[in-house]
C-alpha cells in the first residue's frame, strides 16, 4: 500500500522523536541519578568525617558517654540509620543502638547487613601512634530512590507530552510540505510532456519555495536552450550544406551516411548518387596502406590527418584531395566525421612552384660565384652547389639549418655573423669587401657582398650573400707589389751605387798612383795597399748593389751550368765548414742557358754562404741541376714566372730555415737575419737581381728547423757561343800608346783621373766636361783617334748620342764608353752598337789601358 509522503514524514518524525526522547530521558535519569548519588556520597562522606573528628576526640579521651547523644542526634538525619564507633580493639564503644556497645565491631556490622535500602560507610581513625578506632555509619538509600523515582516520573511525563506535540507537528509539516511538492510535481509532469514555459506557482522563502523557483528557472532555461539548439542546428545544417569544403559522415565500414554537395562535387556526382557509394568505392586501391595507417591513428587518438590522397572521379580521373577527421558518437554509434578539400589547383601551383624553384636553383648553381642566404639568426636557409662544395657538403639542401659555427670556416664564424647582423640591422648592403676563410687547403681570401632580404612588408627577414675566391688574385697582386717594391728598391739602390761608384773610381785611381810612388817605401806602400783593398771591397759592394738593381750591363754568354758549377766546386768547398757535407746531383743532359758567368758565380757563392751560415753545427748542402718546364698554371700562381723551358738549379740545405715573415723580405737589399757585421744583406738581393736580369725565376721554400731550398730557373738557350772576358791581373804590364784620345766626363775628378791614366800610358789627351764641348774639340782637332766618354751626362746629350754625332762627323773615330749603370733609353735604334765597348765604372788603370788598346787595335768600323 502506498503511503503518502505526509504520513511517512509524520511517522518518521514521530519515530525519531520517540528514540530521541527515550535517549534523552535515559541520559537525564542517569545523569540525575549520578548527580544525586554523588551529592549524597559527598554528604555522607562529610557526615562521616565530621563524626570521625568527634569520634577521634572520644577515642583519645575515652569519654564515650558525651558522644552518645551526638550520635543519636545524627539519626535525625533521615539518611543516617545507625552509627557505631569501635576502639582499637574492635570493641564497639559507642553506638546509636545501645545493644551494640560492647560487641565486636564486625559482629555489629553484620548484624545490620547492606541491602538495597541501606549501606554501611566506614572510616578508620588513626594517628601516628597507630589505629585509634573505627567509625561506621549506616546510610539509607531511600532518598536516592526517591530522587530517582521523581526524576523518572517527571521525565516520562515530559516525554509523553513532547511526543504528542511532535506527532501533531509532524503531520502538519508533512501536509504542508507535500502540498507544495505536489504542485511542483505536476509542473514537472507538464514540462515532461512538452509544455513550454511551465511554472509551478509555488512561492515561499523556504527550501520548497527555492525548489519551485529553481524549477521555474530551469524550465525557462531549458526551453530557451531548446530554441537555441534548434537555431544552431539549422545554422550548422546550412553551414554543412553550403560549405565549400567537402564534409562527410560515414560509418566505420566506410558507408557514407551524410555528405554535403561540395563533397559530391569533388567526385563529379550529386548528393543522392554519392550516398549510394561507400568510401572505398572512391578510394584508389593504391592508397589502401595509407588508409590503414590513418585508421590506426583514428583508433589511437580519435582523429586522423591531415593527409593527402586521391579520389576517383566519376569520369575516372583521380582528384587530389586533403582529408582530416575524427570519431563522432551519435545515437550510440561511432561515425567518422571528415572534411575533404579538393587540392587540384594547389597541386598544380605546387608543381609550378617546384619547377620555378628548380630553375632558380639551376641558375644559382650555374653562376660561378658562391651564393647563400640566411635568416635573422644567421642560420642558413639555402645555398648554391658551389657554396655547398666549399662547405664540404654533398648537397645544397644539407646547408639548411646550419650555422657558420658548424662548417669548416668556424674560425671566422663570429666575423661572418657580425657582418650578417650589421647588414640586417642597418638594412644596407655591404658590397665587395674582402674577408678571410679557413679551408681544407689553407686560408683563402674572399670578396664578399651581403644584401639584406626584405619581405613584402619591407621588413628584413634575412641576408643574401655572394662571394668569390680571390686568393689567386691577391697572390698575384702581392707578387706584383713585391716585384714593384723590389724594382723601386733596385732603382733607389742603383742610384746610390752609381754616385758612390764614381767617387770610388776617383779614390782607387789616385790610390793606384800612390802605389807606384810608394813602391820604394815599404811602410807607406803597405798603407796604400791596405787602402786599395778596402776601396776594392767597396767597389765589390757597389757592384753587388748595381747587380741587384739591374743597372749594370753585363756580358752574357751561353753556359752549361753543370760546367759552371763544377768550376766552383773548390770555392764552394772552401766556403762551407768541414761539418757541412756537399753533394751534387747534376743532370746528365742539361739544357744551356745564357748568363753572365761572373754573376752566376757570385750568385752561387752567395747562396752557398747563406746555406753555410744556416748550418753553424754542420749539415748537408745539396746542389742539383735539371731541365724544367714551367707551365701556365705555375705562371698563373707565380706572377714573375713566364711559362717555358728553364734550366733549374736547386740549392738545398738542412739549416735552421726561415719563417714566413723572413721569407717575405728575403730578397730586399740590406735585409739580413745575421748578427751585425756578419752580413751585408745584399746576397739574396744580388741573386734575385741576377735571376731577373736573365729573364729567370727564383723560388724559395723554407721551414723553420727543417731547412731551405732555393730554385733558380734560368731560361733555356739554344746557342752554343761561349765567349768570356778574362779577369785583368794587376801585375801584368800595361799596354800603352801614343794616339790622341778625347776624354769626356761631367765628373771632374774622374775626368782628371782618366786624363792622368791615359797620359801615363803615353797617350795624348783632350778633355771635355760635356758633349757639346767635346764636339767642339772634335771639330777643332782632326787627329783624335778615340772618343772616351761617360754615357750619362747632363745637357741633354748622352755619351751614346755624342758617339753617334762624333762618328757621323768622323766615321773613323773609335768609341769607348764608360758608365756606372745602364739607362732604359739605351739599346734601341742603333745606339746599341756602342754598348759592346763599354767600360764599367769604376775602372782601374789596367782595365782602361786594355780597353783603350783593344779598341784602338780593332779594324776600322767603317
Amino acid at each position, binding site marked *: 500500500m502506498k503511503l503518502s509522503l505526509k504520513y511517512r514524514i509524520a511517522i518518521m518524525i514521530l519515530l525519531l522523536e520517540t528514540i530521541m526522547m527515550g535517549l534523552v530521558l535515559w541520559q537525564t535519569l542517569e545523569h540525575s541519578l549520578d548527580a544525586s548519588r554523588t551529592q549524597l556520597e559527598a554528604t555522607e562522606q562529610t557526615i562521616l568525617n565530621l563524626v570521625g573528628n568527634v569520634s577521634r*576526640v572520644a577515642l*583519645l*579521651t575515652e*569519654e564515650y558517654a558525651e558522644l552518645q547523644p551526638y550520635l543519636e542526634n545524627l539519626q535525625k538525619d533521615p539518611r543516617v540509620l545507625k552509627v557505631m564507633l569501635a576502639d*582499637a*580493639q574492635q570493641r564497639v564503644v559507642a553506638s546509636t543502638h545501645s545493644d551494640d556497645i560492647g560487641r565486636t565491631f564486625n559482629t555489629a556490622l553484620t548484624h545490620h547487613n547492606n541491602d538495597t535500602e541501606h549501606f554501611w560507610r566506614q572510616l578508620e581513625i588513626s594517628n*601516628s*601512634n*597507630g589505629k585509634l578506632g573505627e567509625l561506621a555509619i549506616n546510610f539509607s538509600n531511600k532518598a536516592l530512590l526517591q530522587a530517582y523515582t521523581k526524576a523518572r516520573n517527571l521525565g516520562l511525563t515530559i516525554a509523553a507530552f513532547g511526543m504528542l506535540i511532535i506527532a501533531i507537528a509532524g503531520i502538519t509539516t508533512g501536509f504542508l510540505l507535500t502540498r507544495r511538492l505536489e504542485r511542483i510535481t505536476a509542473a514537472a509532469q507538464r514540462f515532461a510532456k512538452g509544455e513550454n514555459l511551465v511554472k509551478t506557482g509555488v512561492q515561499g522563502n523556504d527550501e520548497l519555495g527555492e525548489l519551485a523557483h529553481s524549477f521555474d528557472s530551469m524550465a525557462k532555461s531549458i526551453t530557451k536552450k531548446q530554441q537555441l539548439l534548434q537555431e544552431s542546428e539549422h545554422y550548422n545544417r546550412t553551414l554543412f550544406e553550403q560549405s565549400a569544403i567537402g564534409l562527410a559522415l560515414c560509418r566505420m565500414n566506410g558507408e557514407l551516411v551524410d555528405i554535403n554537395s561540395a563533397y559530391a562535387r569533388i567526385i563529379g556526382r550529386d548528393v543522392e548518387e554519392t550516398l549510394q557509394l561507400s568510401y572505398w568505392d572512391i578510394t584508389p586501391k593504391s592508397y589502401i596502406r595509407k588508409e590503414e595507417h590513418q585508421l590506426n591513428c583514428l583508433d589511437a587518438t580519435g582523429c586522423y590527418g591531415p593527409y593527402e590522397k586521391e579520389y576517383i572521379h566519376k569520369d575516372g580521373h583521380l582528384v587530389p584531395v586533403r582529408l582530416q577527421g575524427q570519431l563522432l558518437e551519435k545515437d550510440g554509434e561511432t561515425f567518422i566525421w571528415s572534411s575533404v578539400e579538393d587540392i587540384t589547383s594547389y597541386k598544380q601551383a605546387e608543381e609550378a612552384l617546384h619547377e620555378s624553384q628548380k630553375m632558380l636553383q639551376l641558375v644559382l648553381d650555374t653562376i660561378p660565384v658562391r651564393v647563400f642566404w640566411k635568416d635573422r639568426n644567421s642560420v642558413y636557409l639555402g645555398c648554391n652547389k658551389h657554396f655547398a662544395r666549399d662547405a664540404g657538403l654533398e648537397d645544397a639542401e644539407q646547408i639548411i639549418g646550419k650555422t657558420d659555427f658548424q662548417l669548416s670556416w668556424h674560425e671566422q664564424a663570429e666575423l661572418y655573423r657580425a657582418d650578417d647582423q650589421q647588414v640586417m640591422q642597418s638594412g644596407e648592403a655591404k658590397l665587395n669587401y674582402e674577408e678571410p676563410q679557413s679551408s681544407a687547403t689553407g686560408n683563402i681570401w674572399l670578396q664578399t657582398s651581403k644584401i639584406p632580404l626584405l619581405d613584402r612588408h619591407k621588413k628584413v627577414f634575412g641576408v643574401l650573400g655572394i662571394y668569390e675566391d680571390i686568393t689567386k688574385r691577391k697572390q698575384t697582386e702581392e707578387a706584383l707589389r713585391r716585384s714593384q717594391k723590389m724594382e723601386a728598391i733596385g732603382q733607389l739602390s742603383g742610384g746610390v751605387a752609381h754616385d758612390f761608384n764614381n767617387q770610388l773610381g776617383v779614390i782607387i785611381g789616385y790610390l793606384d798612383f800612390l802605389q807606384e810612388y810608394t813602391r820604394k817605401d815599404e811602410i807607406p806602400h803597405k798603407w796604400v795597399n791596405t787602402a786599395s783593398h778596402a776601396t776594392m771591397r767597396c767597389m765589390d759592394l757597389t757592384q753587388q748593389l748595381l747587380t741587384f738593381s739591374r743597372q749594370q750591363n753585363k756580358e752574357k754568354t751561353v753556359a752549361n751550368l753543370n760546367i759552371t758549377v763544377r768550376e766552383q766546386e773548390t770555392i764552394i768547398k772552401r766556403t762551407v765548414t768541414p761539418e757541412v757535407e756537399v753533394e751534387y746531383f747534376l743532370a746528365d743532359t742539361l739544357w744551356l742557358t745564357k748568363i753572365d758567368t761572373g754573376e752566376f758565380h757570385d750568385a752561387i757563392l752567395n747562396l752557398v754562404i747563406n746555406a753555410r751560415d744556416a748550418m753553424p753545427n754542420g749539415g748537408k748542402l745539396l746542389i742539383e741541376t735539371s731541365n724544367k718546364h714551367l707551365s701556365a698554371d705555375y705562371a698563373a700562381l707565380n706572377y714573375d714566372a713566364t711559362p717555358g723551358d728553364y734550366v733549374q738549379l736547386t740549392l738545398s740545405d738542412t739549416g735552421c730555415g726561415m719563417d714566413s715573415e723572413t721569407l717575405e723580405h728575403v730578397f730586399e737589399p740590406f735585409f739580413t737575419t745575421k748578427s751585425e757585421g756578419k752580413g751585408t744583406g745584399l746576397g739574396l738581393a744580388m741573386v734575385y737581381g741576377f735571376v731577373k736580369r736573365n729573364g729567370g725565376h727564383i723560388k724559395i721554400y723554407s721551414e723553420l728547423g727543417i731547412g731551405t731550398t732555393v730554385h733558380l730557373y734560368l731560361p733555356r738557350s739554344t746557342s752554343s757561343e761561349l765567349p768570356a772576358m778574362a779577369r785583368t791581373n794587376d801585375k801584368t804590364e800595361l799596354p800603352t800608346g801614343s794616339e790622341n784620345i778625347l776624354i769626356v766626363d761631367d765628373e771632374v775628378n774622374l775626368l782628371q783621373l782618366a786624363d792622368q791614366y791615359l797620359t801615363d800610358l803615353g797617350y795624348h789627351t783632350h778633355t771635355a766636361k760635356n758633349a757639346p764641348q767635346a764636339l767642339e774639340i772634335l771639330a777643332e782637332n782632326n787627329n783624335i783617334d778615340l772618343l772616351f766618354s761617360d754615357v750619362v751626362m747632363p745637357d741633354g746629350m748622352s755619351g751614346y748620342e755624342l758617339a753617334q754625332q762624333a762618328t757621323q762627323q768622323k766615321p773613323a773615330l773609335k768609341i769607348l764608353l764608360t758608365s756606372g749603370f745602364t739607362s732604359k733609353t739605351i739599346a734601341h735604334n742603333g745606339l746599341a752598337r756602342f754598348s759592346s765597348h763599354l767600360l764599367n765604372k769604376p775602372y782601374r788603370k789596367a782595365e782602361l789601358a786594355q780597353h783603350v788598346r783593344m779598341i784602338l787595335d780593332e779594324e776600322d768600323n767603317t
Partner: protein
Amino acid sequence: MRLLLLFLLLTSSLSLSLATEKKTQSGAYKFGVLPYLSTTRLENIYAPVAAELSRALRHKVNFRTSSGHNRFLNNLKQQRYDIALIQPFWYPPAIDQFGYQPLVRMQEPFASLIMVPDNSPLHSISELKGKLIATPPAFAPVVYMARRALKKAGLIPDKDVQLKAFKSVDSCFQQVFIGSADACITPPFAVAVIEEKMRIKLRALLETTSIPNLSIVVHKRIPADKRERLKNIFLSWKQNNAGKKLLDRIKTQGFVPAIDKEYDMVRAFMHEIKGM
C-alpha cells in the same frame, strides 16, 4: 609428613604473633597527657611521643587525654593512666595518693605568665587594673600562681582586675586575639605553641616565681624495670636527634629526673591555696 609439620609450625607462629599483637594491644600502656591544649593539638604533639615510647619500650603506649582538667584529674585519681604528664600541683596527690611514682620532669622551671600581644599598649602589671585577663580553667596551677602574683603586685583579683576562665590556653589567647580580653595567663611551654599557631608575637607582663615544671609520673603497677627504662628514655631524648625533635614538639629543652623533694614547695603552695 614434614610438609605437614612445617605447615603446622607456620600456622602456630602466625597465631602466636597475632595473639601477641592482640595482647599487646589490650595490654598497652595509657599515656595520659593533661589537657593543657585542645585534644587535637595534644594528639599532634604526643601521639608521636607515644609512638616513640612504644618503640623504645617495646611495649605499646597509647596517648590519651581528657576533655577537661577535672576529668583528667578524675582519671588520674582512678589510676586509669599508666604514664601521665601532669601539672605540678597534681604531683603531690598523684604521688601521695594515687599510686604514682615520679619519673622525670621538664627541666625548665614552671611559672605562670601573664602574656599580652607584643603590640599591646600594656607594658606593666599595674596597667592591668580594670582590665580583663583570660585564664585557663580556674583550678589550673598557672591561675593560682598568677592570682598570688597579682595580689603581691597590689591588684586584687576579681576586684582590681577581672579574671575570666576559659576552657584552655588556646581559648584564652583567642579572646586576647579578638580583643575580648587584654591579657592571658599561660604556662611557659604553651607560649611558643600559641605564637606558632596564631602567628603572633607575645610579651610577658608578669612571670611568677617558678616551681618544678610538668612532670611525668608512672603508676607503680608498671614493672620497675620498665619504669627505669621509661625514665632513661625520657632522659635520653636530649642526646639524640629523634628525641630532640620530640622535645621540640613538646616545647621543652629536655627532661630531668623528678625528685620528690623538689615538689615540697608545691605541697606548701597547695596548702596555701586551700587557705585561699
